[in-house]
């Protein structure tokens, strides 16, 4: 591991990408993720590892550049914030439909529309329930610290290539803009062209030695075949759901009430737990780390122990629907969250726990 550094979450994403041997980065600046573009431009990784950094003319261009690089078996990624991510939805659906691996980072800001530049978590539905068209899923990781911003970049690439599917790092303006301690692993070399040919036989990397052509497309005009493809895709998603659920439980052992929160809201809930426990309220936190696949079972398992669950998210109440699906009516589930770029305070969350769950 490297020495301890003090870095913004956004900068940590950039450094982690270089160090894990990413091949290409295409992006367009937008607050609050612009530090990723700035960091990677200043670092000039083309001199460190040969990685390409290109500021595209738009988000539509960047996601399609990612599509092209991914088709060649390259580790490519892009980053944006909410309005830019809306522009990328078509490309993401095509990449999922073409079964290509890539990493996408969304540093979420308040919407809808151009909205505000302050932190939000209101892109949950867009990320885990579609966004683009068709029956596809994005493997979604939700970091809650600068260290996790760094750690999840190589993890996202690993999962993307393991399942040949786009992986999303869904974060927000708090984690992107804050500085914390972070440590990085040693440099992983980028794969050589020979290694890519060997590891990823599906890659369109130039046909050598008379093998069959590799065709990468999401178009299949024969609906019988397209249904077969969808069945195969769904089987892949069942594998993802079986193998890749990740979550963290904090102070759950004696909990009578439970917060479910991810990303920066999980941090605020930890502060709320300190305040609540000082008043004798035994509350814990279940923090989903993967938002797809979602930790339904882990949440359901808590229903035998807790009297009620408060889902906390900077939105009008999106993830709460998945908490309710997990709980299936066994205990009371409510949502609390500020919207449009306002960040919930620990005091407000404690008040919501009391009025909506404990007394409610």
């Amino acid at each position, binding site marked *: 591991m490297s020495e301890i550094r003090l870095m913004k979450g956004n900068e940590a994403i950039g450094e982690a990408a270089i160090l894990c041997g990413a091949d290409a980065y295409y992006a367009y600046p937008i607050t609050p993720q612009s530090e990723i573009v700035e960091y990677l431009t200043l670092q000039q990784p083309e001199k460190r590892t040969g990685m390409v950094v290109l500021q595209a003319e738009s988000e539509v261009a960047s996601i399609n550049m990612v599509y092209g690089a991914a088709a060649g078996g390259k580790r490519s990624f892009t980053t944006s914030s909410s309005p830019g991510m809306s522009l990328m939805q078509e490309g993401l659906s095509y990449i999922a439909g073409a079964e290509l691996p890539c990493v996408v980072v969304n540093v979420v800001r308040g919407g809808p529309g151009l909205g505000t530049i302050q932190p939000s978590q209101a892109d949950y539905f867009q990320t885990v329930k579609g966004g683009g068209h068709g029956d596809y899923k994005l493997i979604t990781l939700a970091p809650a610290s600068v260290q996790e911003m760094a750690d999840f970049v190589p993890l996202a690439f690993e999962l993307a290539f393991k399942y040949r599917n786009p992986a999303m790092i869904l974060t927000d303006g708090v984690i992107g803009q804050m500085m*914390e301690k972070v440590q990085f692993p040693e440099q992983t070399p980028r794969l050589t062209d020979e290694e890519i040919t060997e590891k990823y036989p599906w890659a369109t990397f130039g046909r050598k030695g008379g093998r069959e052509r590799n065709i990468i497309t999401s178009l299949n005009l024969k609906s019988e075949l397209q249904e077969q493809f969808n069945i195969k895709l769904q089987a892949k998603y069942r594998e993802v759901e079986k193998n890749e659920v990740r979550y963290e439980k904090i102070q759950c052992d004696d909990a009578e009430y439970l917060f479910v929160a991810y990303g920066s809201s999980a941090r605020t809930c*930890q502060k709320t737990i300190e305040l609540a426990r000082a008043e004798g309220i035994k509350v814990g936190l279940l923090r989903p780390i993967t938002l797809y696949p979602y930790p339904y079972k882990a949440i359901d398992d808590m229903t035998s122990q807790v009297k009620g669950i408060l889902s906390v998210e900077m939105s009008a109440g999106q993830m709460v629907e998945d908490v309710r699906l997990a709980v299936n009516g066994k205990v009371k589930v409510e949502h609390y969250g500020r919207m449009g770029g306002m960040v919930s305070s*620990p005091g407000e969350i404690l008040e919501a726990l009391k009025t909506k769950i404990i007394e409610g």
Partner: protein
Amino acid sequence: MTEEIIIAGFGGQGVLSMGKILAYSGIMQDQEVSWMPSYGPEMRGGTANVTVIVSDERISSPLLTDYDTAIILNQQSMDKFESTVKPGGTLLYDPNGIIKHPTRTDINIYKVAAAKEAADMGNPRGFNMIVLGAYLKVKPIVKMENVSKGLKKSLPERHHHTIPMNEKAFARGLEIVEAI
């Protein structure tokens, strides 16, 4: 030990850099730190603030609504943050440009005439280091040798020639802070 601090003033006063130096100083003595800026249009002229937490334990929320210490460097920030200091907490301010002085009686109030001192020293950019010196005199949460190390870490190498000037300003801050 956990110290939760808000540093608030005008953009350009070095509020964010001061927070960064403090956070790096904490790292130098193996503490947990977080640095969360206000970001956005206010950085282009207007108010800027940063929440810094230095702790012996894992830090929960990087954003807070009340603080152990508020370091206040303009009137707008005084209006916004005087009420957010926890009872028994600390408020440190520079009286330059302050029309309405703090009135609370349940907190410890200190002032440091950093803007005036920086001008007198012919080192206006040393302003934030004077304030940092004043703060660490009142609340010695990090050791002085670690501030030097933190300063060196947080400045890019091309600015390392300014370290002696910054250290001089810091030392002056230690001397001129006054309790109210």
